[in-house]
């Protein structure tokens, strides 16, 4: 049981390039989330999905796109990379019930846009 996995771990992009951040979970969770974490700023929600085929915007969606064709995978797409997208990106899935409900986070992808 690997939990939530993310690839790549680190990437350098040039301004204007595009890339896809991969996220996979093996816990059969319906809900999945993408966050970005900037130094001293906590985590901000980019997009989330409540199940295959259903996605919605979070707090900071501009410059990003997502898709959810399967329960397991929730890729995040950057079409035209900008320096403001330099950040650490975390994918998470939701599991548990009631007080045991939690989000399980992947190890993150560190992105540098130059």
């Amino acid at each position: 049981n690997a939990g939530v996995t993310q690839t790549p771990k680190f990437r350098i992009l040039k301004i204007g390039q595009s890339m896809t951040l991969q996220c996979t979970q093996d816990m059969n969770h319906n809900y999945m989330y993408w966050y970005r974490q900037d130094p001293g700023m906590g985590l901000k929600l980019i997009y989330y999905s409540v199940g295959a085929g259903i996605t919605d915007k979070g707090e900071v969606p501009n410059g990003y796109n997502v898709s959810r064709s399967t329960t397991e995978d929730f890729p995040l797409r950057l079409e035209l990379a900008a320096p403001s997208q330099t950040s650490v990106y975390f994918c998470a899935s939701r599991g548990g019930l009631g007080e045991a409900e939690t989000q399980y986070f992947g190890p993150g992808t560190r992105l540098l846009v130059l």
Partner: protein
Amino acid sequence: TQLLEQSPQFLSIQEGENLTVYCNSSSVFSSLQWYRQEPGEGPVLLVTVVTGGEVKKLKRLTFQFGDARKDSSLHITAAQPGDTGLYLCAQNSGGSNYKLTFGKGTLLTVNP
């Protein structure tokens, strides 16, 4: 969106010392979660508090939820270097969609 204020932003202490970090809001929380994030890793849930006045203990960590459910604290007794990390509080701002809003965190360093 409810703002979560965490204090202090940074804390550096010696091994064996006690410490308390805080999470506050101007609005009432339905429930509150504390996460710890170690360097280079994603956040990991420590505890969820739901009832005003609630106290939960996790080994050397004690979590309190304010009576009015507008504030919470995390107290660590006899801190160890393994406690080093970013401590984040979070609350569910999305109802059934369970969208978490995070505070900016307290970065704790415990020196041996």
